[in-house]
């Protein structure tokens, strides 16, 4: 990535400049952003906190880039939180950014889980422990819903899109069908419909 710091604007192809209109994000910022996100990600709420930190607060991605990133992160192999950190890191700083993002997501969480493993047997005897964990996980669901409502209401208003979104929700959330086949069917249909509308 040092290479990129060294080039002058005239050497940079136009589309590159366009895609990196923002001032270059320091790798340290990528790392610390995902440290913070990683340590609040209880109850599967990672994408909600990523949305808040990366789209709303820092403006590294727009809504549609973020949504495409979450979809790709879920489909490709790997843990969703790690994949979304790779996606965002790569978008802002290439390979080095992807590495910084993933390290930020995994390292602190790794330390926390080791500490929890050491104290778990001690704490697991108390019913309060389980009750608090349920509370924190429930708050994570709130974070997920709030982010979902935000992106749903900001999405281009079109009944086909609402229908596709609802179908994805029912198939995976209510029917519990495996996600990969569901997305493999819905995504191409939705992309084709988006292409037709664009014409």
């Amino acid at each position, binding site marked *: 990535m040092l290479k990129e710091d060294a080039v002058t604007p005239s050497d940079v192809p136009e589309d590159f400049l366009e895609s990196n209109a923002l001032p270059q994000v320091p790798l340290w910022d990528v790392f610390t952003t995902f440290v913070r996100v*990683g*340590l*609040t990600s209880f109850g*599967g709420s990672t994408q909600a906190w990523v949305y808040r930190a990366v789209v709303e607060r820092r403006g590294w991605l727009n809504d*549609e880039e973020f*949504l*495409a990133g*979450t*979809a*790709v992160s*879920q489909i*490709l*192999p790997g*843990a*969703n939180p*790690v*994949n979304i950190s790779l*996606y965002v890191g*790569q*978008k802002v700083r290439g390979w080095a950014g992807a590495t910084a993002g*993933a390290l930020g*997501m995994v390292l602190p969480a*790794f330390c*926390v*889980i*080791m500490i*929890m*493993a050491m104290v778990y047997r001690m704490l697991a005897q108390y019913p*309060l422990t389980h*009750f*608090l964990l349920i*509370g*924190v*996980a*429930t*708050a994570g*669901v*709130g*974070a*997920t*819903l*709030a982010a*979902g*409502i935000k*992106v*749903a209401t900001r999405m281009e208003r079109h009944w086909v899109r*609402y229908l*596709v*979104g609802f179908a*994805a*929700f029912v198939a*995976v*959330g*209510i029917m519990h069908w*495996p996600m*990969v086949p569901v*997305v493999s069917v819905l995504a191409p249909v*939705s992309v084709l*419909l988006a292409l037709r509308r*664009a014409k």
Partner: protein
Amino acid sequence: MDSRLWTLVLVFAPLSVMSFGGGQVIVSDIQLQTVVVHHWFSNQQFSDLFAISRAAPGPSTLIASLIGWQINGYLGAIVATLAMYVPSSTIFVLATTMWHKHHGSPWRLAIERGLAPVAVGLIFASGVTVLEAIHMSNLILGIGTVAVTTVLLYFTKINPYLLLFSVALFYAAVFYLL
């Protein structure tokens, strides 16, 4: 390298490559490998590790770190974690490199527009799935917590740690008062 460390790599690296759809899809394979194939744990020990990985923040596949730790201490934990994340992450970055290069191209915009509603549906689905898995003992408290946190996070810029800490404090109060 120690043969136990190699075994950890051989257990987790293939699962990492196969984890299409996220970490939760390989948990049953991790159980099969560690309990049935390698006899590292009893079912009860495995479900304890699973409970810890669910309670901790971050990806659920960090259960690999716990397993590595049990098998070969801190070195085992590090090796298992790398085996869990390096293969899938390499595939992910290679696969999305082309994607990031074509910022603003028409086909990428069409894919983004097409994926967006699917992704929104999946976000709501993940919320519902977690809610089902939580096993709330008190339905009113649970729904109230979801409602209040949703509203707070939708309308305000509240600090995430402050929010999670307040919820934990509130639950502790409820626990002792009721």
